């Protein structure tokens, strides 16, 4: 057997086990909207932890982070900081979002906007911002997946064939088992990924240098400036670092799939306790940095930094190890991809089509339409991913900057009774507009500041000012959660189910 066949057999073996696990997770359960999107709100501490870890650590933390350690150097440290600080924000807003969801049977992020602000158009706008950025985020996962399959098969299996197979599997288990599949496939994904990261992160420095300490002794004399900020990217200094961390930590839980995942928790306490232990997961990130740093000396001159980890593994170990790392990487793309298509499909059906075009639709029909959309969105993303090259970094950056703009609407909605629908609407439009303008006119960073951060500041000002100038939608009950809307929502719910 050629090395390529051994590696590919292991990768597709991993994908197959993932598929079986995912489909099995939903067998013998009636998959209505409530089960499919939020697993009946029954996830306890451990399964919820696996779901969270499954969604946080994507191909980006695996290939992207090692790639940035390789090509950026010091600025890559922002990843540890912003993911840790995002959990601090989660600790405070997560339980509140969950409580609103539990009380009013919410399924999506746009449902929350609908409930809090009572505006169908605002909710539809939020749903659209969500769907567009999710599709872009999906591109990142698909690109990573394609890279893994291409490199692990020694360029025998084409990128497009690999992506297509993996994607049929993802659509398959999302359709049959919904969010339960995501949680259970995460068990497999997290186990493989942790073994791969710890193994590779320790083994590569040992193999080439005799240890991590020795690796830095070899690296510091030649690349000392690379290891602190701004590293090899002159614009990424300390101002960039602070503003990027603030923008990303705020934006982190604004990805629409988080809302569905938060609603799936059994209690608010489950979320708080998870937020306490989740930062510890970041202790694996330095090992990923080490692989990227080691590759500077062992594999210099790579054009695409994201290939650093896989090429180093391919040059160092047997095809079986490459296959194992590839399988871990493939599942690391597939789990987030699954939750992304699930969220995008639900948002489109529940918060865009039903309220605007078919108000009489039942929840069951919404679930059916959402499943159709899962197939459509997967197919679209697949086409784009196969057509386009790997130069998606700019668009992805924009996706993160775009989704962060929902932060003021969500958080002011939770903490400030005066926040109004028009305020949130204006804030989102100004924020997304600023982010698009700065990124596409190549003004990111803007005077050293992350473009998403600049947009977020303007957004916050806009939301606050417009809210103060307008009257809340339900002046008679000027409260955080308007009961008038709430009754309507629960009636719809009873009617639907």
């Amino acid at each position, binding site marked *: 057997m050629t090395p390529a066949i051994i590696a590919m057999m292991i990768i597709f073996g991993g994908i197959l086990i993932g598929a079986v696990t995912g489909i099995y997770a939903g067998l013998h359960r009636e998959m209505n909207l409530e089960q499919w999107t939020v697993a009946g709100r029954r996830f306890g501490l451990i399964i919820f932890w696996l779901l969270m870890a499954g969604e946080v650590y994507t191909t980006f933390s695996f290939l992207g982070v090692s790639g940035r350690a390789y090509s950026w150097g010091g600025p890559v440290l922002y990843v*540890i900081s912003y993911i840790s600080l995002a959990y*601090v924000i989660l600790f405070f807003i997560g339980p509140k979002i969950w409580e609103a969801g539990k009380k009013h049977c919410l399924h999506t992020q746009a449902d929350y906007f609908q409930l809090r602000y009572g505006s169908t158009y605002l909710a539809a706008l939020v749903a659209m911002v969500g769907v567009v950025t999710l599709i872009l985020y999906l591109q990142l996962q698909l690109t990573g997946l394609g890279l893994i399959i291409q490199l692990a098969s020694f360029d025998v299996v084409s990128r497009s064939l690999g992506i297509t197979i993996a994607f049929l599997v993802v659509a398959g288990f999302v359709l049959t088992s919904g969010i339960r599949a995501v949680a259970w496939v995460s068990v497999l994904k997290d186990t493989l990924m942790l073994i791969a990261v710890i193994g590779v992160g320790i083994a590569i420095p040992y193999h080439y240098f005799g240890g991590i300490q020795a690796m830095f002794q070899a690296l510091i004399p030649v690349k000392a400036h690379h290891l602190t900020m701004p590293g090899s990217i002159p614009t990424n200094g300390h101002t960039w670092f602070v503003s990027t961390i603030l923008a990303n930590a705020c934006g982190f839980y604004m990805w629409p799939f988080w809302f569905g995942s938060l609603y799936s928790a059994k209690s608010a306490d489950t979320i708080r306790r998870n937020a306490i232990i989740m930062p510890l997961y970041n202790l694996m990130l*330095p090992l990923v940095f080490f692989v990227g740093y080691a590759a500077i000396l062992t594999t210099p001159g790579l054009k695409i930094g994201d290939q650093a980890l896989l090429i180093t593994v391919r040059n160092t170990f047997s095809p079986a190890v490459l296959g194992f790392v590839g399988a871990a990487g493939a599942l690391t793309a597939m789990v987030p991809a699954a939750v992304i298509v699930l969220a995008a499909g639900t948002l489109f059906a529940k918060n865009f089509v039903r309220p605007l075009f078919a108000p009489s639709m039942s929840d069951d029909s919404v679930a059916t339409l959402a499943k159709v959309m899962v197939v459509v969105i997967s197919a679209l993303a697949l086409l784009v991913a196969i057509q386009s090259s790997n130069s998606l970094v700019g668009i992805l950056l924009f996706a993160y900057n775009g989704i962060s703009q929902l932060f003021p609407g969500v958080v002011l909605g939770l903490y400030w009774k005066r926040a109004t629908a028009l305020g949130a609407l204006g804030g989102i439009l100004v924020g997304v507009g600023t982010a698009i303008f700065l990124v596409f006119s190549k003004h990111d960073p803007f005077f050293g500041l992350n473009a998403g951060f600049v947009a977020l500041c303007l957004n916050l000002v806009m939301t606050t000012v417009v809210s103060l100038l307008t009257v809340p939608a339900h002046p008679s009950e000027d409260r955080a959660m308007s009961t008038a809307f709430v009754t309507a929502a629960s009636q719809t719910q009873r009617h639907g189910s």
Partner: protein
Amino acid sequence: MDRRKLWSYVLAAVPFLGMCFTVPLWDRLYPLVFGIPFNIAWLIAWVPITSLCLWGVYRLGKAVDSPDTGATEGEISK
């Protein structure tokens, strides 16, 4: 503001100081810690500190939530 609530916010701000705003103070190569550049070692140390801070906030919140009802897990009934 409630004293305990104030302390929870102070405690939650600590990781932001350690991992974000103080970056000019710790973003350097030396002294190496177990052979690892100082900036990486600093952030590795702050990961468990972040967890500890959140645990502290959690304890403070528990003390507020359950005075004498014994409902330690009772946030649902609230």
